[in-house]
């Protein structure tokens, strides 16, 4: 479907589509709001569109599990260090 607002589209990368010399933008006009935002920047569009699941390779799953185990072991070591400090103070 062709957009009703295509006349507001960005014609060249890096150019803004509205006349920027006006003192205040007419933000009550939805066309102006839409012309200032990217297509997936509008809240309603973001709610309808999401990035789908990535298929994780065996290597990536191994990496994530390895790092998870690393964090758990390290947290146990932190607990040991804190308990040791408490014991020393007491």
């Amino acid at each position, binding site marked *: 479907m062709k957009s009703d607002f295509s006349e507001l589209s960005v014609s060249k990368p890096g150019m803004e589509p509205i006349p920027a010399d006006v003192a205040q933008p007419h933000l009550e006009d939805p066309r102006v709001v839409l012309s200032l935002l990217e297509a997936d*920047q509008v809240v309603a569009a973001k709610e309808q569109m999401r990035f789908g699941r990535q298929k994780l390779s065996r290597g990536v799953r191994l990496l994530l599990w390895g790092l998870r185990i690393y964090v758990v072991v390290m947290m146990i070591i932190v607990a040991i260090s804190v308990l040791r400090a408490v014991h020393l103070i007491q």
Partner: protein
Amino acid sequence: MDRTKNDVTSSPYVTAHPTTESAAASSDAPALAGLLTHEDVDRARDRWEVARARWKGRGAKKFRRVRLLWLLIGPGVLVFLGENDAPSMLSYSADGARHGIGFFIPFVVLTFLMGFVVQEMTVRLGAVTHRGHAELIFDRFGRFWGFFAMGDLVVGNFLTLVTEFIGVRAGLGFFGVRPTIAIGGALVIVAAAITTGRYWTWERITMGLAIFNGLFIPAAILARPNWHAVGHALVTWKPLPTGNHYEIVLLILATIGATVTPWMLFFQQSAVVDKGMQPRDINAGRFDTILGVLLASVFAIAAILATAPLFHHGINSVDFQAAQFAEALEPLIGHTGAALFALGIFEAGIVAAIAISTSSAYAFGEVLQTGHSLNRPLRDAWPFYLVLLGSASAAAGLVLIPNFPLEFVALTVNVIAVLAMPPALAFLLLLVNDPEVMGEYVNGRWANVAGIGVTLLLIIAGLGFGLATVFPKWLGG
């Protein structure tokens, strides 16, 4: 709106993909026009200001550039000045007080460079996808891994928030302010910052507060540092720290944790999204991040210099907390210097409390798919604001409990941040190398080398801490 064909037929969603297409040019523009929210309008207003600053017919080129940078800085400055928080400034103070001017000054610069490598990726992720970090992890890796990442964030953020209020209490305690008044006042400031219902206003108020992190500079000047020794340390990394090796390993880990932590990834990406930054703003986002790195590293070095007299006078600062640092410094750098130091710790706590509670609220909103923008009014996004204020209030409440082990929490927070960072960095690197998410903005080779290098360094530092804890005698602990 362009939609990629996909096989997610059972999902209510359509798969997103990176686009720089204007919403007005998309095929969904008529439908979207009727669904615009307060958040969209506020964001469009911010974008209009940026468009106006870019407009070639308006003013001299250099003034337009300065105006543009002024409009686009924020998330990078806030994340780094926010990370110069109470436990971080205490870590830097401990570096200065225990080892003087030497190894830790260039080491702090190195940790901030590591911070830049990591945070630059969040700028690109946010500007290209317009999604927060938690949202992308849940979308791309699923709920299982998403909840692990959130678990690390929630625990780390809450513990860090507690230490921020420790800083607030200790900083104002130097001036004789009662803990209930100090903590209550801090909560009022956090609440006041978010009542504006406007990201832009919140950002400017918080940046206005954050600049007072610079109070450590006059405190450092009053300490009359040996500038020749500072220059020598920056070039040679000497003198190296001496003494208890276990304590040195802990300080190194705490110093890294003072600069590179998981909440920073979530916060900056969400703030970039909330600010409405677009791919064409990525260079400005990089400048913003470099500015944050520069300011924060100078203020961090100032904290080291301010407390270095304690080392030169042989004062044992091993068990010092914030107020005790200020009290011990008073006879050496005068009441003004000590007061500036205490105020700096208070400021560090309050700015970080705002930034970290906002980071938690952003992540919760993204995961629960409820409104998560500071551009939303309270009635529209009350769960977001409830998490923000609720997490701050709970952390503040803990600090007021009599006999609460404040020192243990403060000591371990930075260490936990370093240990939780490698998985967070793995998610970040996977996302920023994902062409379906990033399109043409995927990581280049050198960004990957730097990112993987930082991750390996953090893992090695964590393993060093683990070995030093389990086998303390190896390091003379």
